[in-house]
């Protein structure tokens, strides 16, 4: 079917300013992605999954201007022993990064893979992204596969001694970054991936994660404080038997954020947990779009998303659990909640369940509300001032998402960031 004219024009306008990198072994995947993108077109407001989030600033030819956030505050995770991989406005910085070597892992830059004819990442690059296009199209991820200019391929074969930390710095007010990472966790291997920073004025990031039987991947992300930055991120994760994927995202400001998680449980007894805590003030729009497919027996999935919104901020949650025929003993859970600190803010939620197996436990819930007045009075009656009491209850609200983080040290850092945010706004 031909695309509507407006959509086609918007797509071609965007493509006109992009150049496909010299692609080596990823060339086929990139060219295929480009033709898929031309067929589906870039997202518009009329698309079902873009009703609540305006995609226009994510698809324009030029990235909207975004002022740099200047602060002498240290970036997240700075005190951790980790392997640093730094991108500045979407460009790998060898000077700022550590040497890309760590026992149990091999790490290659996308650029290096592109020079090679044979590389393991070839089996993954664009593959999970393409699989994740059905039944919901995700054109920004397809655009990413075609035009990503940088990124890393991480092959985890053992249990590295420290986390791999992807750091995204923002230096230019008009930067438009497209990064694509692929991660393969081998059977029995385990790794922690940290991501943080505002990245660019506009950031399109795609991560494809393949976790083999018994592998584990922990993902912790903090999206940075730049008020005017925009980000559209996709994480495509495929899980093998008895494998584990746990992902947590903290978002503190950002004018527009769309985080998509597409998860496919393909091996029995696998576990996938995705969680997010976001706090937004004023000109802030945050969208979590999650699609979990159960395609094996006795798998567990959890989605826990909490949003605190004020001064006209908007939160969106679109979460789906699809249980395929035969995926018996599925345990699927989904909760999305917002705490609206005033009447100007809004939360839009679309929870979906689609189940084709008859022996499953799936639940979902979504709530939106103000601070509990009774609890607030209880705290105040004990002498806690109203602002401090409100902050305590706000943190308590977010705690249910934060407890999804296994590492208590990391969880503490996340809580500190949330406390800082609350303190700045009291």
């Amino acid at each position: 079917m031909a695309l509507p004219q407006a959509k086609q024009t918007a797509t071609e306008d965007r493509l006109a300013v992009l150049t496909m990198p010299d692609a080596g072994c990823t060339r086929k995947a990139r060219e295929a992605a480009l033709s898929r993108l031309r067929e589906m077109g870039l997202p518009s407001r009329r698309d079902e999954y873009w009703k609540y989030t305006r995609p226009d600033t994510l698809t324009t030819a030029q990235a909207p201007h975004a002022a740099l956030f200047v602060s002498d505050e240290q970036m997240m995770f700075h005190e951790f022993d980790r392997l640093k991989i730094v991108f500045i406005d979407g460009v790998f910085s060898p000077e700022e990064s550590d040497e890309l070597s760590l026992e149990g892992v091999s790490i290659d830059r996308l650029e290096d893979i592109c020079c090679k004819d044979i590389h393991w990442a070839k089996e993954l690059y664009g593959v999970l992204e393409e699989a994740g296009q059905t039944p919901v199209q995700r054109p920004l991820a397809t655009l990413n596969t075609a035009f990503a200019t940088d990124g890393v391929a991480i092959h985890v074969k053992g249990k590295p001694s420290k986390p791999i930390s992807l750091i995204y710095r923002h230096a230019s007010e008009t930067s438009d970054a497209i990064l694509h990472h692929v991660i393969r966790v081998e059977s029995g291997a385990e790794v922690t991936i940290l991501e943080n920073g505002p990245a660019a004025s506009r950031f399109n990031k795609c991560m494809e994660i393949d976790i083999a039987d018994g592998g584990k991947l922990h993902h912790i992300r903090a999206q940075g404080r730049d008020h005017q930055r925009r980000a559209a991120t996709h994480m495509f994760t495929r899980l093998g038997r008895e494998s584990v994927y746990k992902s947590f995202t903290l978002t503190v400001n950002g004018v527009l954020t769309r985080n998509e998680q597409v998860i496919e449980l393909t091996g029995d007894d696998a576990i996938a947990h995705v969680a997010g805590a976001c706090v937004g003030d004023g000109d802030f729009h945050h969208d979590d779009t999650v699609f979990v497919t159960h395609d094996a027996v006795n798998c567990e999935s959890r989605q826990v998303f909490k949003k605190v919104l004020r001064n006209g901020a908007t939160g969106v949650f679109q979460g789906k659990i699809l249980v395929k025929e035969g995926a018996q003993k599925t345990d699927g859970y989904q909760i999305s909640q917002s705490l609206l600190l005033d009447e100007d803010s809004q939360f839009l939620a679309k929870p979906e369940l689609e189940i084709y197996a008859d022996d499953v436990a799936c639940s979902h819930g979504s709530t939106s509300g103000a601070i509990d007045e009774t609890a607030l009075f209880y705290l105040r009656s004990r002498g806690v001032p109203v602002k401090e009491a409100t902050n305590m209850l706000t943190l308590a609200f977010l705690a249910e998402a934060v407890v999804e983080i296994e590492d208590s040290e990391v969880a503490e850092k996340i809580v500190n960031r949330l406390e800082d945010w609350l303190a700045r706004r009291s």
Partner: protein
Amino acid sequence: MLEIKNLHVQLEDEDKQILKGVDLTVEPGKVHAIMGPNGSGKSTLSYVLSGRDGYEVTEGTATLEGEDLLDMEPEERAAAGVFLAFQYPVEIPGVGNMTFLRTAVNAQRKARGQEELSAADFLKEVRAKAKTLKIDADMLKRPVNVGFSGGEKKRNEILQMAMLEPKMCIMDETDSGLDVDAMKLVSEGVNALRDEGRSFLVITHYQRLLDHIKPDVVHIMANGRIVKTGGPELALEVEHNGYADILAEVN
């Protein structure tokens, strides 16, 4: 200590008068009990004194050591020395009991211009006080009142009272939902806090609690007013004859 004069209160949302001219003076170091039938305005009095939203004072005054309570925010009243032991202590998921206690203690100290308690000093004090109330370490770690039994919740209220050392303790039906042993434990906790500089206003339906916490003065409240005041024997009279006789006598 506490002086209430001609207090008239109505609900903010509806035009319903609850308190219709309460007069009450509680002297330092004394324990006053308020008894009365359901709907007489006892709980409303406790909420109005502690500053809960939803009530409008249309007439009268309430002062603590000469300071106008009605003009203060709830946290200011707490810092001034008012403490309300809730009839239904509130569950607060996500806030640890210990964190809550420490925040409250230090917020009050700060409001009074005192230095905050160090973590070590606080811990020492809270452990000692919790022990006498048979509150174990696990209860201190759990979120505030979440999953606590009725008795545990009330003991937790008394622990807060012990930590905050208020001047004016208002206890709203603390005996409700308590078995005999729990009532004894709670009463012992309260009695341990009795002191020349601290007053109590004990609201209850039953004389039973007053066997454990001996009042100096007993008031009977009905239809938004204190209708009779007497000594401890008044509570016994209620226990034997019910409120009907007293109300008939007053009317």
